[in-house]
């Protein structure tokens, strides 16, 4: 009898490792563009959905989210790389891609009007549109100002890190957070840098500006408040997790979520804690304020409706699937309805007052 055990292991070891490498590669390290959460934009009774499997959809909200068009079309063999969060700009929809730059699509038809290449780097941030100019950043580490109608680049500003968030605009100044730990203040007309502030970690959310201050979160677990003119730090507030999404400023209170599962409300002037609300998982998205209610999406698959004054829960909507039903993107409000894009590709329309589901669309499954 020969002793095959060591030999068998000699074969099994590499094969098992190879199998594991392939498996892990699928989840952690393949060259495929990394997926992002789906992004929503609303205008004129149409909801635009981008991300996840790389398509852009126009959904008719008056007819239960029925598809108006999708890009690329269902029968297209074009690679679907629309992974950025969409933004409405007049009659155009601006959407970033995983490698082909920024696309301007006709909102009525989905036809491409123009594109801007970004050196094969992803554009994930939602462009900021103001006065016919769109400002967008990408993983090529540049912020660009683009004339919306023509697609002409007006200026570019280089940073030293990926840009995963749109800038904020106030008083002719742009405030941009980048993954190089810096918050930049630029002149919106020329793109010239006015000042920069070095935070302790990467900045992946859009800043909020108001009351002479600019607020932003960082991966160093802090929310910062700076003087909007000079860039000097006024205060900072430490959480137990990354502050990924941008803060929301409303009525002298700063609302934001963190990966420590909490939604915080701070006094904008002093940074003192007004209340915090604990969800079942991390809170990535910027909260939404709509008609007296604060809406916060959590990765636990719930959208929480909170009293902005006290942090008391009014209701919560559960996607029925804590894994595939995670909520990572910002909810969108239109009239008395709140729309949420779920990680399983579905879009839910909820009654803003009660949280009752009005309809659930599954555009990816509809041909």
């Amino acid at each position, binding site marked *: 009898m020969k002793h095959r055990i060591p*030999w068998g292991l000699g074969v099994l070891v590499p094969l098992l490792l190879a199998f594991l490498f392939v498996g892990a590669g699928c989840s*952690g390290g393949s*060259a495929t563009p*990394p997926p992002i959460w789906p992004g929503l934009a609303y205008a004129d009774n149409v909801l635009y959905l981008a991300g996840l499997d790389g398509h852009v959809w126009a959904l008719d909200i008056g007819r239960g989210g029925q598809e108006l068009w999708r890009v690329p079309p269902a029968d297209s063999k074009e690679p679907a790389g629309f992974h950025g969060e969409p933004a409405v700009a007049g009659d155009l929809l601006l959407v970033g891609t995983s490698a082909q730059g920024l696309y301007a699509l006709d909102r009525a038809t989905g036809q491409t009007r123009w594109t801007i290449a970004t050196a094969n780097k992803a554009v994930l941030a939602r462009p900021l549109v103001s006065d016919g100019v769109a400002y967008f950043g990408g993983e090529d580490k540049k912020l660009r100002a683009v004339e919306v109608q023509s697609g002409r680049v007006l200026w570019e500003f280089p940073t030293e890190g990926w840009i995963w968030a749109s800038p904020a605009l106030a008083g002719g100044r742009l405030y941009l957070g980048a993954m190089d730990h810096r918050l930049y203040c630029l002149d919106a007309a020329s793109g010239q840098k006015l000042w920069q502030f070095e935070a302790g970690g*990467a900045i992946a959310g859009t800043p909020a500006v108001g009351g002479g201050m600019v607020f932003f979160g960082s991966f160093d677990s802090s929310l910062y408040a700076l003087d909007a003119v000079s860039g000097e730090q006024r205060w900072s507030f430490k959480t137990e997790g990354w502050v*990924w999404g941008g803060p929301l400023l409303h009525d002298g209170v700063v609302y934001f979520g963190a990966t420590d599962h909490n939604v915080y409300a701070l006094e904008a002037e002093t940074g003192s804690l007004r209340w915090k609300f604990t969800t079942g998982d*991390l809170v990535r998205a910027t909260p939404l304020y709509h008609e007296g209610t604060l809406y916060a999406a959590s990765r636990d698959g719930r959208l929480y409706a909170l009293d902005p004054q006290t942090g008391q829960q009014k209701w919560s909507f559960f996607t029925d699937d804590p894994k595939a039903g995670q909520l990572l993107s910002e909810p969108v409000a239109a009239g008395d309805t709140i729309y949420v894009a779920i990680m399983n590709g579905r879009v839910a329309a909820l009654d803003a007052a009660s949280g009752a589901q009005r309809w659930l669309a599954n555009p990816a499954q509809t041909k």
Partner: protein
Amino acid sequence: MGQIWTQFFLQPMLNGLLLLYGALGQNFAAAIAVFTIIIRLLTLPLSLPQQRSAKKMQELQPRLQELQKKYKDDKEKLAQAQMELYREAGVNPLGGCLPLLIQFPIWIGLYQSIAQTLAAGPLQLLNLSNNIYKSLPWLSSLVPVKNTFLWLDLGKPDPLYILPVLVVATTWFQQKVMSPPSSDPQSASMNQSMQVMFPLMLGFFSLQFPSGLALYFVVSNIVGIVIQYFTPGWVGVSFGKKGVQPAKAVTSKAPASSVPATSTSTEAEPAGGQTAKKGQQYGKKRRKRRG
């Protein structure tokens, strides 16, 4: 189970890797290399018994062949005699397996920690945020890691295909120095096909994977080759060094048994020539004791 894995394997490795990244001037390629070397050295006490066990088993081959011939019609007696032989020689035939199995999770954890630290997209980075120790909050300020090194974006495949070629070459050479030639045609054939297929397979994966992982393969292979050189010695190559004679010599120098000392392991076994001699010596000693 998933939580145990994350808590005891993935998180310590991932945080260790980030610590090294910070300590080495935020050079992630250097962090991967140093971390791989440290893990390989730390697991040496686990891999050495396996190599020793394989070596002992190899030494017993001539005696086992004799027993097989002697008891070819009585499997029960054969099994008893084999167990007696193992007991006298102080060998546990499965002794080499356990250390090898224990190393599995370490390799997989190492691989996963590198893959996760190289998080290239928002969703991957969200997962990473869960696994960084809250007690070391400054580690969070190191992400996302700077993943450029020379011509490489460590989060993407090597565009020049240099690393995949190095992966194939070092994997092949490591297998070569760890696998003694076998005179058993079936084993030899399987060994040979594995020595070709596995490096090609890893090379193929390296074409798809982030180059940071290909770098890990290369460093791990080189460390394995060096360790093998200084422990049992390279066995599958011949540079005129002690212990690298091909198995052909065994067949001609193994009169103790008409069947050559068959190598059946692809892992770290001693040279066939030495093995045969030692096997004969052991047989002589044993006969002397009995006599």
